[in-house]
């Protein structure tokens, strides 16, 4: 790869990084306290995509040490990702019950 090509590649990554910061800020700038916990939990699950990185290094890994560490990373990342989405869904499931009870409570009072 030529030096100039490398540079433009790095610049593109930098641009992606900076634009992502702004998107991240913008997307959650208005959120009610009620949703803080599920939002945190959902964001937590999203960074579980480190699983992709773990799979890539597990593919490259050659020595026993490297393989062991990489496989451990795959396990941890999977727990983070899968567990994270499931637990967030469980939290939000309970919110869903709320809108149902809204209608039901009509004859309560």
């Amino acid at each position: 790869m030529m030096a100039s090509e490398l540079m433009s590649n790095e610049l593109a990554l930098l641009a992606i990084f900076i634009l992502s910061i702004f998107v991240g800020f913008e997307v959650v700038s208005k959120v009610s306290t009620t949703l803080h916990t599920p939002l945190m939990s959902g964001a937590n699950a999203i960074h579980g995509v480190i699983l992709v990185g773990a799979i890539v290094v597990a593919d490259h890994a050659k020595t026993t040490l490297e393989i062991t560490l990489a496989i451990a990373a795959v396990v941890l990342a999977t727990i983070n990702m899968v567990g994270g989405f499931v637990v967030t869904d469980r939290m939000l499931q309970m919110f869903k019950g709320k809108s149902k009870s809204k209608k039901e409570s009509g004859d309560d009072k």
Partner: protein
Amino acid sequence: MSRDLYDLIGLLAAVCFILALKGLSSPKSARRGNLIGALGATIATVIVFFYANNGQALNNQTLILAAIAFGVVVGVPAARKVQMTQMPQLVALFNGVGGGAAALVAIVEYLKLGESASTAVVVATVFTVIVGCISFSGSIVTFLKLQELMTTRPVVFPFGRQIIVLTLIGVVVSGGWVINSGSTTALLINGLLSLLFGVLFVLPVGGADVPIVISLLNAFTGLTVAASGYVLETTLLIVAGTLVGASGTILTRLMAEAMGRSLFGTLFGAFTAKASSDTNQVDTRPVKSGSAEDVAILLNYAQRAVIVPGFGLAVAQAQHTVRELADLLAAKGVEVAYGIHPVAGRMPGHMNVLLAEANVPYEQLVEMEEINPTFPQTDVVLVVGANDVVNPAAKTTPGCPIYGMPILDVALAANVVFLKRSMRPGFAGIENELLYEPKTTLLFGDAKDSLTKVVGALKKL
């Protein structure tokens, strides 16, 4: 699979993540948002198998698949079975293992970096190891605190501030050593110091502030994922990690604001405040303890009653019983509302989730700003297993760990009833003066038992 196609599908996954965060910011779309996020993650995971080794089966593929299956077998039941009360620590734990995974990825990548690696890549690798380790050990400590496997109070020790600063210097210096020398020993020392720093960083944080720290560590993990995306030249990891890092930072600030705390004060408050040694004194002042019948009579003749739920409600799983009581009171013509403190329980929104599970009508859940002006017109406030969120010390005692946190002004009501297990102070470990006020009645016992007794007594009246 060509690089272009891989990047294109990766872009699709990245869009899923953006939509997920957007969806999670609004109650209506939250659940769908989470599912879209899960879809994005699944896409990203599946396509890497077709790309990483030029379309051939991956090296160690069987091991990788077994590891994923194992992770699913561990993660899903944990997430499914966890009690509502323990969700915060589970999120902390998931965040910790994510940080650990990122650090491991960076370590393996470091071991394979040849001479040719650019300085920028080495720096990003070291950054991932450092922050991933901090996130891992810090999250484990928050887990231990929330699970009450260790003290929930700020842990302050002699020369704590000096030790933590020295550790931080050690982390930075050893990080520089790794970058200059490329030695594995240096990386090992750097990782260990980072783990130590994570522990020291979280130890002095008081119990009530732990959710803020979880959120911050969550943002940290996001940044490590972004950095490892740079090292591995995977755009998707950069986008996903940065999104979580940025939104996590904003969310941390929002949470701190909801608690009326500055982020700085939360993280470093324990260093600047004196160790609150006076909390350990056993207070021998008399309290007025009542029976379930007393409480029932008080409620029966009230015009307006406000229920303030706290972590004790969650522990006792008393959300259904409390609803039964509220319905009974409403049938007797008492105006009932729930006063919801934004951080009651162990996480923002914890009480909303819990009461929603018991189908409490949404209109009855009143947020702090709206309920506070109504307390002077309230006859009885029933505090169910809450303490810190109604503790006047937050207003009156500068230097106490919760000073400055907005509270529910239950002291303005005519009568206050506390359902408590014991005289033990709340999560933050601060004495509550309100317990000794003449207008306060205490009903000791498990919240569910006490509520059941009150409901029984009320039915007889």
